[in-house]
């Protein structure tokens, strides 16, 4: 009850503050247009934003360890988050600065019009690519290497069962979690990338064929896609993966290959829809008509006339699809049917390490491992989304 009361009081103060803020602003700036035309809601927004900022700064400087000696996990996490955010912002800024000064005229121009978020996205993608390719060189141990020290806690604090040799600890059979996290980039990202490419190959080809040829082929494909899309993708994937788990053993083909195929097919339905829609938009263009009237073949139409124009939306969709595939794989791994051990995979790692979250209150460092794995997933998808957003913004012109 008192919580509610506090909430009401804070709200009232903020509401009052907004009124004062606008009034003071008007008086101080001599009724400048900014304040003169400011709505009350907008003023409230400013005050709320300011209040949040003040609270954030206040909270940031709270002691990390409470007087009782128990770490104040909330503050610890908040500091990490803020520091991470600032470091990310600075890194992105420096990266953009680098891009603006080094490189060809074209790339410089690209970087000049780039928002910080997109620069951050590109930076993250580059780092992931680097880590994925050179995982073997970066990781201190092999992903499947059993080191003989099982269940070492993260944080390297021997009092809590840690070991400085394994900063993020080891898993239940003694594999180094840091190494697995690094290899996860290779497996999770690599597999997701292959899957997305496959989905685009299948969906894109069929979609463009349908939009170019139309008629019964279009009808057949579109209705089939409707049917496939009516079954929720995660559930369908779960079902098919369960079936595949037997075939994989019977045929001796790794389950991962089945997973790539299954997710690619399920996802290709979404790609098909987009490719078809984009294709239909392009097919009505006069230059396609001109090419048709010239007597051009289907291959030329699809690959030389339609595809180059569909690249921008497809590329943007590729980013989003990649994220989606990535998350689906993570979810499947989380439910236990995704990438199989001993391959390191972030989704499985989150599931396996999740119990540590419960101990955040007295061992914040231990709680961080599952968050690191999940964060690795989130960070990449955020980054891709940032880049996609920017690309969409760029291709749609200055409309927004």
């Amino acid at each position, binding site marked *: 009850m008192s919580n509610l009361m506090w909430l009401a009081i804070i709200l009232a103060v903020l509401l009052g503050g907004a009124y004062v803020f606008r009034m003071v602003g008007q008086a101080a700036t001599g009724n400048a*247009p900014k304040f*003169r*035309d400011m709505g009350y809601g907008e003023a409230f927004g400013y005050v709320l934003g300011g209040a949040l900022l003040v609270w954030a700064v206040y909270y940031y400087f709270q002691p990390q360890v409470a007087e009782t000696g128990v770490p104040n996990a909330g503050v610890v996490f908040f500091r990490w988050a803020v520091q991470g955010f600032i470091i990310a912002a600075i890194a992105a800024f420096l990266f953009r600065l680098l891009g603006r000064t080094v490189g060809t005229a074209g790339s410089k121009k690209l970087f*000049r*019009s780039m928002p910080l978020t997109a620069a951050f996205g590109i930076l993250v993608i580059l780092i992931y690519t680097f880590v994925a390719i050179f995982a073997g060189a970066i990781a201190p141990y092999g992903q499947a290497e059993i080191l003989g020290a099982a269940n070492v806690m993260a944080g390297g604090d021997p009092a809590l069962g840690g070991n400085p040799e394994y900063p993020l600890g080891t898993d239940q059979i003694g594999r180094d979690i840091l190494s697995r996290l690094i290899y996860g980039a290779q497996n999770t990202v690599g597999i997701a990338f292959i899957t997305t490419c496959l989905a685009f190959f299948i969906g894109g080809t069929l979609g463009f064929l349908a939009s170019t040829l139309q008629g019964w082929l279009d009808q057949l494909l579109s209705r089939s896609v409707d049917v496939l899309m009516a079954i929720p993708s995660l559930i369908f994937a779960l079902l098919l993966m369960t079936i595949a788990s037997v075939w994989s053993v019977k045929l001796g083909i790794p389950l991962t290959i089945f997973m790539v195929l299954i997710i690619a097919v399920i996802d290709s339905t979404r790609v098909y829809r987009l490719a078809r829609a984009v294709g239909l938009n392009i097919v009505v*263009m*006069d*230059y396609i*008509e*001109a090419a*048709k*009237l*010239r*007597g*051009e073949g289907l291959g030329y139409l699809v690959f030389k*006339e339609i595809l*180059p*124009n569909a*690249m921008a939306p497809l590329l943007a969709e590729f980013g989003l699809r990649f994220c989606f595939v990535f998350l689906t794989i993570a979810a499947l791994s989380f439910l236990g049917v995704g990438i199989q051990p001993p391959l390191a995979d972030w989704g499985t790692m989150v599931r396996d390490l999740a119990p540590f979250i419960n101990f955040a209150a007295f061992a914040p460092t231990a709680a961080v491992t599952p968050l690191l794995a999940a964060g690795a997933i989130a960070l990449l998808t955020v980054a891709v989304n940032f880049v996609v957003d920017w690309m969409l913004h760029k291709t749609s012109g*200055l409309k927004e």
Partner: protein
Amino acid sequence: MSNLLTIKGLKIEGRSDETWNPIINGVDLTLKKGEVLGLIGESGAGKSTIGLAAMGYTRDGVRISEGTVEFDGIDLVKASAAVKRGLLGKRIAYVAQSAAASFNPAHKLMDQHTEGPVQHGVDSRAASTEDGIELYRKLRLPNPDQIGFRYPHQVSGGQLQRAMTAMAMSCRPDLIIFDEPTTALDVTTQIEVLASIREIVEEFDTAAIYITHDLAVVAQMADNIKVLLRGDEVEEADTRTMLSDPKEDYTKSLWAVREFQRPAKPAVPEGSVPVVSVRGITAAYGKTDVLHDVSFDIHAGRTVAVVGESGSGKSTAARCITGLLPPRMGEIAFDGEVLPADYRKRTKDQLRQAQMIYQMADTALNPRKTIGQIIGRPVQFYGGLTGAKRRKRVNELLDQIELEPSQYYNRLPSELSGGQKQRIGIARALAAEPKFIICDEVTSALDQLVAEGILRLLADLQDNLGLSYMFITHDLATVKSIADEVVVMKEGKVIEQGEKTDMFTPPHHAYTDLLLSSVPEMDPDWLTNLLEERGVDNIGDAAVDKM
């Protein structure tokens, strides 16, 4: 009498690529009560921007950087949003170019009409509805009692444009901005809208700024005319002076466009085989016939203009000829040889012989290909030329369309102006070395000066290469300047056809007559005379309906 609107030193900037670029570089303007000022200029001249600025409004990404816009003593540049809201709609109203897009599709016309008066507290809803019906009647909208209770999509374009004028009038404003209100309309519809606007502005003694690119139209509407060029004022004078005695070269060149006229060609020799022969084609989209028994011939080296209003079947006829829409009945012959109806069944050579140039150069050129690729493809496809030979041929073609090859070869369409793009379209058609080219409204999207250039180019090419053109257009001025023969179409039928000289000399078929007489002329009294001639109740649509 003091000025209602005074604009001084107005500078406007637009944002692109993170920087602000000037759009209007200092324009002055005054308007007295009851006065109509015509703003004229080509696209990009800043007409609409000034029109909106006169209301104290700028679109997103545009800002007024300097100058004042004083309306009845209030500076709209500095006024607060609330003050402006109090004026807009109530004392300054706006009539947009496309009424179809500017009416909210979700609400009935009358609801949108009464919204202004009710919100501004000018009138009650009921009274405003009453007034709206009265305005509709004044604007001679059919069925004025009921038409307001329809949704925008249920009303035709011309009627919507009048309803929008009525809506602008709903608060009896002192000033109305008309932003190209008739540009999107057919000529016959344009007349009635022009007439209504003029009448109502006169009746309520409303001041107006009339924005258009069409000189003949502005001549009918405005007391004064201001000519703009790329954000600068060229000159301003009262209408009659301006029309008869323009001072500036630019203005003169604008005026001169109308004078381009090709010499008549000798008549077709008896018994010569036409290049293209359209024989009794009937075609349908789905189940409804859109073409009924259409026949005409196009002879070598001649231009046949197919005219008609939108929806008359001009473009459908072209689609039948190209084979995109196989006709239900009838046939197409090329050099006397009957072509397969479907383009997919035609030989490469048959396809090569007939080429097409499109209205919208933007959609006609693949935006991802360079000019060299666009023109080079047919060169390679039909002529089998590759490498240096191909490059040479493309250069020749670029020379032919008067674009410097070295400069344009590697450009993308987006880096070209509208006229240049249209020229590339022509070059692509020429690359196939055809006998016959369909020109589908090739100049209607272009500014008049540019359009004239294209027409001249086409004429020259015809003279040099002996091409035949099928020239689809709704613009009779274009017909006059370029055609040898004219085919008039309406509702999928050919109404009349013949030599241009015959067609432009009376007597005509009634529809042709209506079409011809509806083309505005540069005479300020033209509209008045025409209305008198036709009788007040007998203009526009109504006249057509009676045929």
